[in-house]
């Protein structure tokens, strides 16, 4: 099977799991609403009956923000005007690329880990639904049945991510710092920095892909020995590097395109009527839903490719391999 075919086959598969994607989105939204109401109340209280309220509706008021940020407590401290429009994406991408996504307020770390657990739970369900000969076709039954093993796999993956983003990235940063200690041309340091992130993220994405296939292998074969799954997946990716990576980067390009489109259409600070504010919010929600679909699309396409590869290139069935 070619990556492009798996890519399109994957998108068709999304319809089969729409309920569960919406369920995940509902959790995401509920968490955001709970925390957002705290931030919103802090902004509301800070504004009172002042004219700054009008300014904030029409645009922004940096004098108000000066007072607000100087006195903000708890979650309200995380409010910054750069959350507007594409800033909501770039602020996080910046932390993501630099391996700092889990830093900051403790509540973000806690909720982030819970959210990871939820996705780990749902992963087996998604994969099971996408596999044509799944041993446990029921979504929730599969999700529950494989949770322990996928959590173990996630811990293994987390250790590798830590090595890459915590240790290797730091090592490369230190190495470049030493290498460019006397460099006076910003361009050299800039391109070396780009190269650093390129190298690290090539590996991170590669590892991510291997662990995606590891999950598929665990669910497909009901594999009990979790550490074997990444080894098997590693072999699969090594055997079909162009196809597996081609599909992965095709989906990556889709993600980039989504960001670019959102950049073009995301409203800025100017939305001033209730209707415009709601429209901006709904557009943001659409973007979040599409991102979640994309995440499931990875599974859907990768399962299609996985099954296609075994049908076309091997006489063995997946069960026999295990």
């Amino acid at each position, binding site marked *: 099977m070619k990556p492009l075919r798996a890519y399109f086959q994957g998108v068709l598969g999304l319809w089969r799991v729409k309920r569960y994607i919406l369920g995940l989105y509902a959790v*995401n939204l509920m968490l955001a609403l709970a925390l957002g109401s705290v931030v919103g109340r802090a902004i509301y209280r800070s504004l*009172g*009956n002042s004219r700054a*309220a009008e300014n904030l509706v029409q645009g922004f008021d940096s004098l108000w*923000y000066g007072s607000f940020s100087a006195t903000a407590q708890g979650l309200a401290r995380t409010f910054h005007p*750069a959350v*507007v429009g594409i800033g909501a994406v770039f602020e996080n991408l910046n932390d993501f690329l630099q391996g700092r996504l889990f830093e900051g307020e403790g509540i*973000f770390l806690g909720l982030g880990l819970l959210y990871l657990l939820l996705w780990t739970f749902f992963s087996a369900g998604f994969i099971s639904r996408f596999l044509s000969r799944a041993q446990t076709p029921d979504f929730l039954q599969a999700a529950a049945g494989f949770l322990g093993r996928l959590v173990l796999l996630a811990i293994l993956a987390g250790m590798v991510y830590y090595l890459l983003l915590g240790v290797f990235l730091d090592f490369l940063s230190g190495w470049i710092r030493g290498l460019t200690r006397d460099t006076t*041309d910003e361009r050299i340091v800039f391109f070396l920095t780009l190269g650093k992130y390129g190298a690290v993220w090539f590996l991170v994405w590669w590892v991510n892909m291997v662990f995606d296939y590891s999950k598929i292998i665990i669910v497909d074969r009901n594999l009990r020995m979790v550490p074997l799954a990444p080894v098997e997946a590693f072999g699969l990716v090594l055997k079909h590097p162009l196809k597996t990576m081609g599909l992965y980067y095709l989906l990556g390009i889709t993600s980039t395109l989504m960001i670019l489109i959102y950049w073009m259409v995301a409203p800025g600070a100017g939305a001033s009527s209730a209707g415009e504010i709601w429209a901006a919010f709904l557009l943001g929600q659409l973007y979040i839903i599409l991102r979640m679909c994309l995440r499931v699309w990875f599974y859907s396409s990768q399962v299609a490719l996985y099954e296609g590869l075994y049908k076309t290139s091997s006489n063995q069935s997946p069960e026999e391999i295990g």
Partner: protein
Amino acid sequence: MNARFRRLLLGLGTMGICLAMPRASMAAVPLSQRIANYQMDVRLDVAQKTIYGREVLTWINTTMHPARELRFHLYYNAWMNDRSSWLSSSRYFARALESLEEGDWGYCKVQSIQLLREPPLDLTAGMAYIQPDDGNPHDRTVLRVPLPQPVFPGDTVRIAIEWVSKVPRPFARTGVVGDYYFIAQWFPKIGVFQEDGTWNCHQFIQTEFFADYGVYDVRLTLPTGWVVGATGREIETTENGDGTTTHRFYQEDVHDFVWTTSPHFLVYTDRFEEPGLPPVDLRLLLQPYNRGKKERYFEATKLALRYYGGWFGAYPYDHLTIVDPAYQSRSGGMEYPTLFTGGSRWLSTSRTRQPESVTIHEAGHQFWYGVVGNNEFEHAWIDEGFNTYSQSRVMSVALPPPILQRWYLEGFIPVLFPDVVLNERFDGADIYDGFRSPLKRDPMARPSYRYGPGSYRVNSYNKPALMLRTLENYLGWDTFRKILATFYQRWQFNHPRPRDFFQVVNEISERNMDWFFEQAYYGSNVFDYAVGRVLSMPFEPTKGLLQNNGDFVPISQVARDTTPRDTAVGKLYRNLVYVRRWGEATFPVEVRVTFAGGDTVLERWDGRDRWVRFEYIRPEKVESVEVDPRRVLVLDVNRTNNSWKRNAPARLAGWKWASKWMIWFQHKLELMAFFH
């Protein structure tokens, strides 16, 4: 009598200095007193990153007191080790020091010092390091040299000093990185002998500098082919045939000398010409990667020369060198006489205001610092505050308003948010909110070198800029411009103190503004006026008893329209507006009250009591109240509480921005899910 005598001494001394200077470069009339004059021969050893120098200092005692010793700044010794007062007091550098290597430290070692007379007298044995400010015995930034006999009022001494300066990795905007040298505060420099007969020669701790004006005639021997920029004009270039070239720079009436060299600079020239102002030749030394910013550097420099020149007085020199600092050199954003460093990231666009903001600021320092030479050790706010105020004023009239920008991926990539419009720096003090405010840590009047942690920046830059803006708003721009122009003209090539400025304010405005300076300069109380409660109550029929023919009778038995209040029932509102003073500092403020029909009333309150109440019996309710609607008192630490509006859309505003925060948070969760 004393003043006449001093002028006579000064004239004789200056005449002597002029005779020793190159004729082609001499100004017809000295602009300054020319107290400290240097002739230097300097050689840079690139391999050793070391400067070998010899200077002949010609110094005139213009005071009425004999000078029994000389004191010199040896600023480079602040980088000798981490026991110096500068490094041991600076928390910022504690982390940076960890990455320093052995060859990165710097120093300035005086090898010999001679009194030039017949015969010359060696003073080397008597010199000693002193620590007049903090007594730190490890600090070697001030050198004391006793004299065999005093320098009497009006007398001139000539001192020859040989020294070696090891160039450090950049500290405080001086040093070397790669083959980029930016050399500032690098030579043994005499302190200022004050009118009271004491030396003003502080240790180098956290401030900038202070020196007398004079003439600098400096020969720099550098590798051939390297581009050099320095204070003054290059008047002579000699190839030495040994791979080095000697560049001679000459400048009159300045109080410092700085230079930079690198083989990589691109050199561009331009000329500032503006009706009513003298032309200025501009020379730009640009980093190759910033080639595209050439015009932006020139235009920003011209903006400063045009506006400062038009508002305060002309730039008195006919040339100005702009240096685009090398990446990682930490030499950007600093002023020196007739030369300044800008600074810009490679990918910065014009809306980032890089390099415009820093260029206008540092070019502006040519006026506030270069021409008006205050004591930056003790009154850093005079140049930094005046200049921050002036820079903000130029930017507010000549550039688009600032917008939010974020620099991503380790600060390399800018992303702009054009519809998040920000305020200029002098528009408000809100960031220094409330009673935890850094504005309260030290009064501005405390000597700058004694400011506590976090106070230096606020008290030297932000608070004085806000103080000057408040004065401008209060006195009116025309009057305030005259004040600044008078101050500039009166104190050019001299060393004004804060009281000199206050005197000019009172004189030109013809008002005594001491009450304001007592609070804003000598005190650390903050200003905070606020709208308190606003009540609009409809009149209701009177309840209770009324006296009728000597008896108290129920009001229901009295004809209702006999009381004026009852005639208002259903027609008028009793509007009460409370305005409060939360801060300890006081300032007269206006209060604008707007009624539902659009009518407005402007009240004036002296702002002294803790609160004031305004009452209006009108057919409309109060719609909005604003304290200080013209934004005169930009020192107010909380602008938000200055206004009140009926049905202000706070809930909608809260929802709008919380909804954006939610999308940010949801996206954060989504990215976290990548690692599942």
